[in-house]
C-alpha cells in the first residue's frame, strides 16, 4: 500500500466537483429522496479520497442516517505492500485497498479519529459544527490534514452531485476478468455516486507467474518507461475510454471506435464486453474471489 503522505505524487484528476455530464433527467432526480455533495481527489498511485455529504430532501425523514463520510480507495493496485505473512498463509488477503483496513497503525488511528469527528456511530454532527473545527486542533499521525479538510470544505460548501442513469451501480468496485486469456486480463476500478461514474481506472494485468499477485500492470510499464510504443498507444486508448466514460457517464462510451481494435495484442473487444456487462449489472463474474 502506498502510504498517504503530505507530498502529493502527482495529480491525475483534481476533481473538486464531480459531474456526470448531460444525462441528468427529471426522472433520475425524482428517484432519489436525498441529495449529496461529493468532493474527490485522485492521485497517480491509484488512491482516490472522497468526502461525501448526504442530506434528506424536504419531506423525507429517516432514522439513523449517517450524513458524512470520508474514504480512500485504491482503484489501480488491488494488493498493498503490507500484506502480512500470516494473511498470505491463511489466505486472508484483501482484494481491494480501502484506507484504514490494512496498513499502518497510524492510518488506523487517523481513520478512527475521522470516524469520531464525523460521528459514524450516531450521525449527530452537523455541517455547521464540522465547518467550525480548527484543523490545528486535530492531530493526524499520517493522514494529510490539508487533504481531509479541503475535501470536507469543498463537499460541505459545494454544489449538489448530479444524478445519472446508473442508479444501481455500486459505489465502488475493483473488477477483473475472471481468467487470464492470452496471458493478460483487464482490470476496471471505479467510484460512483447518484447514478454517475465519477472515477474510473482501466488497466491491463500481464500474467507473470502463478501466484495471486504475479502480474505486471501496463500502467507501471508506462510509468517506468519499459512499455513498447504499441503498449503506450494501448494505454492511451484505455485512458481516453475511462475519461470518456466519466465525462459522458456512459459505460459504453466510444465502443464503436474501439471494440474491434487490437493494439499490442490487447483485444479491446474484451474490454467492451466487460464495460457492457457492468452497464447491464451483470458484473458478478468480475468480482475477484477471496484469496
Amino acid at each position: 500500500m502506498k502510504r498517504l503522505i503530505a507530498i502529493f505524487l502527482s495529480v491525475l484528476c483534481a476533481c473538486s466537483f464531480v459531474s456526470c455530464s448531460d444525462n441528468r433527467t427529471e426522472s433520475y432526480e425524482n428517484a432519489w429522496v436525498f441529495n449529496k455533495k461529493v468532493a474527490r481527489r485522485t492521485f497517480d498511485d491509484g488512491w482516490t479520497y472522497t468526502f461525501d455529504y448526504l442530506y434528506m430532501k424536504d419531506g423525507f425523514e429517516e432514522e439513523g442516517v449517517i450524513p458524512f463520510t470520508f474514504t480512500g480507495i485504491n482503484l489501480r493496485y488491488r494488493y498493498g505492500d503490507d500484506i502480512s505473512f500470516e494473511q498470505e498463509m491463511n489466505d486472508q488477503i484483501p482484494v481491494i485497498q480501502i484506507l484504514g483496513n490494512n496498513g499502518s497503525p497510524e492510518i488506523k488511528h487517523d481513520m478512527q479519529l475521522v470516524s469520531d469527528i464525523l460521528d459514524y456511530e450516531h450521525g449527530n454532527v452537523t455541517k455547521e459544527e464540522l465547518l467550525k473545527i480548527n484543523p490545528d486542533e486535530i492531530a493526524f499521525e499520517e493522514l494529510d490534514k490539508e487533504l481531509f479538510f479541503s475535501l470536507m470544505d469543498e463537499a460541505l460548501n459545494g454544489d449538489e452531485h448530479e444524478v445519472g442513469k446508473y442508479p444501481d451501480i455500486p459505489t465502488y468496485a475493483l473488477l477483473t476478468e475472471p481468467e487470464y486469456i492470452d496471458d493478460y486480463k483487464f482490470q476496471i476500478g471505479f467510484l460512483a455516486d447518484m447514478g454517475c461514474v465519477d472515477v474510473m481506472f482501466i488497466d491491463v494485468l500481464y500474467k507473470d507467474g502463478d501466484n495471486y499477485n504475479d502480474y505486471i500492470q501496463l500502467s507501471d510499464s508506462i510509468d517506468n518507461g519499459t512499455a513498447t510504443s504499441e503498449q503506450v498507444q494501448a494505454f492511451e486508448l484505455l485512458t481516453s475510454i475511462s475519461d470518456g466514460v466519466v465525462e459522458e457517464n456512459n459505460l459504453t462510451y466510444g465502443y464503436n471506435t474501439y471494440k474491434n481494435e487490437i493494439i499490442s495484442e490487447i483485444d479491446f473487444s474484451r474490454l467492451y464486453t466487460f464495460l457492457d456487462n457492468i452497464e447491464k449489472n451483470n458484473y458478478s463474474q468480475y468480482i475477484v474471489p477471496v484469496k
Partner: protein
Amino acid sequence: MKNTKKVMAGLLSAAILAVNMASLSANASEVYNYDQTPNLLPGQSVNMTRTSPDFYGYYQTPVMTAGTARKTSTISITGSSNTISSGDFGVWWFEGGVGLSTKFVRSTSRTVKIELYEEDENGTDILTKRQTGYFTVGSDGVYTVSNFTGETIVNNKIVENDNTAEVYMKLTVGKVSGDTSVNIPAGLMVYGYWID
C-alpha cells in the same frame, strides 16, 4: 484437521477482507463473548467454547433483493465428530469487495437477517441458528454490514449422524424507507463456515 485461526480485533470497520485473524492455539479452549469484546470478529458465538474449528470459505454473498430472503449455495463441511449438533458449526463474516449503490439510504437502522440451515436429504431442512447483521459506517467510511449479534441456536439437536453437514443460509437484507432500489450486488459480504 486444518490449522486453526484466532480472531483478532478490527473487523467491525473492515473493508474488503480486512480480516484480522490470528491462529487459535491448537490445544486450548477459548471462550468468546461477543458482548464483552466488541472488536471480536463478527460471527463468533456468545459464550461458546470452541477448540480448533475447521474453516470452509471464502464465499461471496449472491445477488440479493432487499426485503426478500435469498438462499446461498449449499456447502458440505466436515467436522471431527461422528455426529453434528446445531451448536457445532456456524458462520464467520467479512466485508465484501463491492459497495452498495447510493440508492440505499446510509442508515444504521438497516439490518440483515441471517438464518443458518442444515440441509436434510429427506427434504426437511433444519433451521439451526439465527443471527442479525447491522449496517453501519466503519472507520474506513464504508457503509456495509459491520456488526453482528451472536448466533442464537434455534433447534439445539443432532442434525447429522455422520461427520459432514450440508449447510446454507437464508439472507434477508432489510429495507429502509428512504431506499429507492432493492438490488443488492453480489459480493456485498464474504463469509465462511466453521465446524468443530
